[in-house]
């Protein structure tokens, strides 16, 4: 669950514009850079920088069609994130099993105070 190898993915996704681009690509499939830029009040070069960050993190891939740069989500792009969360799920599940036992070992609560044995 330590996250050094996830740093590029966290940093790529950890920006609202890039997160929104990822959501758009998942929803609509392949989209041109121009169309991706449209909803945002930011320049085309700024969008290009965001797309490069996503590409370097292995989340999106590009192809050129005539004068258009087309982007898609890489199929396994988010898999590393899902796997990382899965390790947390296991960590918590194991911890909560232990918590359950500890709670049972604590002295009884409530109005009827029993003498400790």
């Amino acid at each position, binding site marked *: 669950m330590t996250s050094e190898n996830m740093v590029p993915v966290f940093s790529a996704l950890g920006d609202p514009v890039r997160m929104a681009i990822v959501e758009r690509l998942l929803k609509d499939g392949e989209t041109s850079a121009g169309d991706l830029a449209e909803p945002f009040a930011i320049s085309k070069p700024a969008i290009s920088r965001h797309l490069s960050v996503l590409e370097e993190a292995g989340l999106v891939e590009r192809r050129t069609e005539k004068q258009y740069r087309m982007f898609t989500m890489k199929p396994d792009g*988010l898999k590393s994130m899902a796997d990382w969360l899965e390790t947390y799920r296991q960590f918590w599940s194991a911890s909560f099993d232990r918590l359950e036992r500890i709670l*049972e070992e604590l002295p009884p609560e409530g109005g009827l105070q029993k003498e400790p044995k």
Partner: protein
Amino acid sequence: MTETTASDDLVLFIQREFKATPERVYEAWTDPAILARWFGPEGSTIPECDMDVRPGGHWRALMLHADGRSNEVSGVYLSLDRPDALKLTWAWTQDDGSRGHETEIDLQFIAEGGRTRMRMTQRVFADKGMRDAHEGGWISSFRCLDQVLA
């Protein structure tokens, strides 16, 4: 033991029932002596645990694994609402000493006749701007689609 889990790629949700009151479960999270007894996988121990239990206060735990490796984890309490709710941040310390990626843990302790239903949400990205950007929920839809096609 009833455990429900759900996740999309950015949020992990776990719900669990405990045979104890919310006060007890809340205390298990905020008393270092108790937390050290359950926190971490089987076979691990917490030789050090410090908590400054107030909004903005820091917490820290050193986890020693069965194989001798140790990891430090730490964070800040974002909000405290004893015994109903607790919100904190969480990050592991990396090999170079800096803190790694910070996640946010949101806990609710719901009383159910002497028992507690604990709902835990762990968010990969803590801030509101990110949450708003993720509101479309397409990342989770993508995962569902993946499972159907597999």
